[in-house]
């Protein structure tokens, strides 16, 4: 067994920083551009397509089972709204309860402050390495990179995080970070980078998980500090709740002497009793389990059981900005189940990368622009990364109308660009179109002129190339030649 503090070869630990760099690079890119390499990656397409189909089918079966599923969703929606509507009160109550139970609450206005707090806490323990349970919030705050830069070795405790760490890439899925990797790729990554991986390792998922287990368990016993997220925080009792399948969270919150839990302020629910709803919704919507294999709940510190120090870092990082938007705030109901990813036809074809570093899939398209603003072209492109097909809203366990919020955010993007001194070509086009449509005569004239042009562009009854913005359509799709007479011409002559 490895001595405490002795790190794995630093390929593993340092892998985290390049992964972050890759995420940072994709963040600077519009969704459509960032999606192109993923669309061309045939292996990713096949693996991801099959994996999300499996996830989707399991969740659908699990949601179909309880006769009261719709009542649970309605209750979930209402209690998440209730949490948000009195968020200040609940946060203060949470702080009192956690402090009363021997924990310490820290408040981080943004990711940089969360990084300062966590690096400071880790340094104070003198630990040279920390265990990290899978957590989207920990990633959002950029903690792994910050700790690595502070000279602390970050050991991902989860199998998915281990795989994407070895691949030096950003996670592609909310609950299964390495879902885009097939078994052969995982085997290759293990043979290349996982210490102690047997040379005759097969590509059976059970064997791969076994090899990861041997490696991960070899290292956990000496860990002194762990960093985790939380699924929920009950405001009245100060109880933190974590759901998981693999035991990595349990390991983090029971073995090390210091536990640091980083959670968004949106994770608060009014009362412990509310878990009776959320613990039915989350597992079924997320993994299709009736109950996730492990659910842990802890309130401050428990003398004689688990960490002696518990630090809860409450992260804003844009959440209050989202809360200020009366339409957009419904996005904060999200319980991070991934159901919307698994049914999204866009996500299924691109994976998580093009959505940037915060959250993938429809939830990312909806939350990232709210948390980070729409000033950058990349964030502004996210609300448009959807056909508004509505499959996500159908399955959302807390009934977030994701397409409606995306439309709302598209409006936010357009409004934010109206005041620019030079209008965007799209604004000119859309204004012109609206002006034309605003009057029946103008409209009729434009249709006549437009269809005449279109007929000139056509060959054999179809148009194969259109100019300008419309060229994106004819890159892959024909347009039929328009008929000489419009409907209203026909109607007028009857």
């Amino acid at each position, binding site marked *: 067994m490895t001595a405490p503090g002795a790190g794995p070869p630093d390929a593993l630990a340092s892998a985290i920083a390049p992964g972050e760099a890759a995420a940072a690079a994709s963040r600077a890119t519009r969704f459509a551009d960032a999606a192109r390499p993923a669309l061309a990656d045939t292996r990713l397409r096949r693996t991801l397509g*099959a994996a999300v189909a*499996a996830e989707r089918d399991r969740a659908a079966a699990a949601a179909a089972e*309880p*006769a*009261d599923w719709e*009542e*649970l969703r*309605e*209750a979930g929606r*209402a*209690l998440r709204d209730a949490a948000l*509507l009195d968020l*200040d009160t609940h*946060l*203060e109550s949470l702080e009192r309860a956690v402090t009363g139970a021997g924990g310490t609450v820290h*408040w981080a*206005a943004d990711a940089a402050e969360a990084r300062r707090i966590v690096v400071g806490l880790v340094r104070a323990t003198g630990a040279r390495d920390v265990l990290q349970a899978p957590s989207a919030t920990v990633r959002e705050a950029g903690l792994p990179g910050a700790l690595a830069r502070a000279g602390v070795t970050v050991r991902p405790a*989860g*199998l*998915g995080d281990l*795989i994407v760490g070895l691949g030096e890439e950003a996670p592609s899925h909310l609950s299964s970070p390495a*879902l885009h990797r097939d078994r052969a790729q*995982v085997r290759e990554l293990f043979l290349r980078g996982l210490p102690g991986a047997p040379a005759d390792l097969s590509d059976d*998922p*059970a064997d*791969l*998980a076994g090899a990861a*287990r041997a490696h991960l*368990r070899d290292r*956990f*016993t000496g860990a002194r500090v762990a960093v985790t997220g939380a699924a929920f925080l009950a405001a009245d*009792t100060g109880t933190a709740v974590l759901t998981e*399948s*693999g*035991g*990595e969270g349990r*390991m983090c919150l*029971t073995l090390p002497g210091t536990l640091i839990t980083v959670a968004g*302020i949106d994770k608060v629910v009014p009362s*412990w*009793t509310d878990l009776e709803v959320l*613990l039915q919704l989350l597992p079924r919507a997320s993994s299709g*389990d*009736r*109950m996730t*294999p*492990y*659910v*842990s709940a802890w*309130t401050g510190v*428990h003398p*004689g059981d*688990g960490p002696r120090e518990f630090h809860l870092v*409450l992260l*804003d990082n844009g959440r*209050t*900005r989202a*809360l*200020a938007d009366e339409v957009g*705030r419904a996005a904060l109901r999200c319980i991070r189940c991934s159901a919307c990813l698994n049914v999204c036809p866009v996500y299924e074809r691109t994976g998580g990368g093009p959505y940037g570093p915060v959250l993938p899939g429809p939830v990312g398209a909806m939350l990232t622009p709210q948390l980070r603003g729409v000033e950058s072209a990349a964030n502004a492109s996210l609300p448009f990364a959807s056909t508004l097909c509505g499959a996500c809203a159908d399955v959302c366990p807390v009934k977030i109308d994701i397409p409606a919020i995306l439309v709302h955010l598209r409006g936010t993007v357009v409004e934010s660009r109206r005041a620019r001194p030079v209008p965007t070509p799209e604004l000119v086009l859309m204004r012109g179109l609206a002006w034309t449509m605003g009057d029946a005569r103008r409209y009729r004239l434009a249709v006549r002129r437009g269809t005449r042009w279109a007929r000139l562009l056509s060959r054999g009854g179809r148009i194969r190339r259109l100019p300008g913005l419309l060229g994106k359509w004819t890159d892959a799709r024909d347009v039929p030649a328009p008929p000489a007479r419009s409907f209203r011409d026909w109607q007028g002559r009857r």
Partner: protein
Amino acid sequence: MSSRDEILRRVRDALGGDRGTAPPVPRGYARRLTAAEAATRADVLALFTERVAENRATVRHVAADEVGTAVAAALWGREAKQIVVPADLPFGWLAELEGVRALADPPVLDAETLAASDAVVTGCAAAVALTGTVVLDGGRAQGRRALTLVPDYHLCVVHADQIAGTVPEVVARLDPARPLTWISGPSATRDVESVRAPGPHGPRHLEILVVED
């Protein structure tokens, strides 16, 4: 201004002066099992058994005077040489055990000792029939959380009267001030191709003995 006050101020600004009151949460969901799910106490036990099995755990029913024999048989079956148990485990549960070294905790066993042990035997605080879940709260016969995490095999004794029908019933029974671990089947992962495989941490084998008093 501290970040605490800054965040709370932002929250208040975001919600505005006229936030209104949250409408009551509609709680039309089932709090108890429906008659279709379980009409009698025997149905509840049958449902628990079915759901535990579907969670890929082993489940057996024993009479109160058979617990010792059943525990011993299960551990022999796994060829366990060293096990860990909470110090307050009922004595009778290990009474039939021979040739197996049982280490009690407390005194606190270090993680290496836990990792070198083949099994852990505990009781539980409550169970949920509908989801096939056992819940441990660190109380009698359950030990601290690390005990049921590190060894690869967890044998959990559940008394029939500990089994509630639904999640709301068991949430009402539990004390959130205690450290709670809900266990629904062995450790699992679907991180590779969404195919279920034994998980990287936690017992890969869970066996539940239902004691019918």
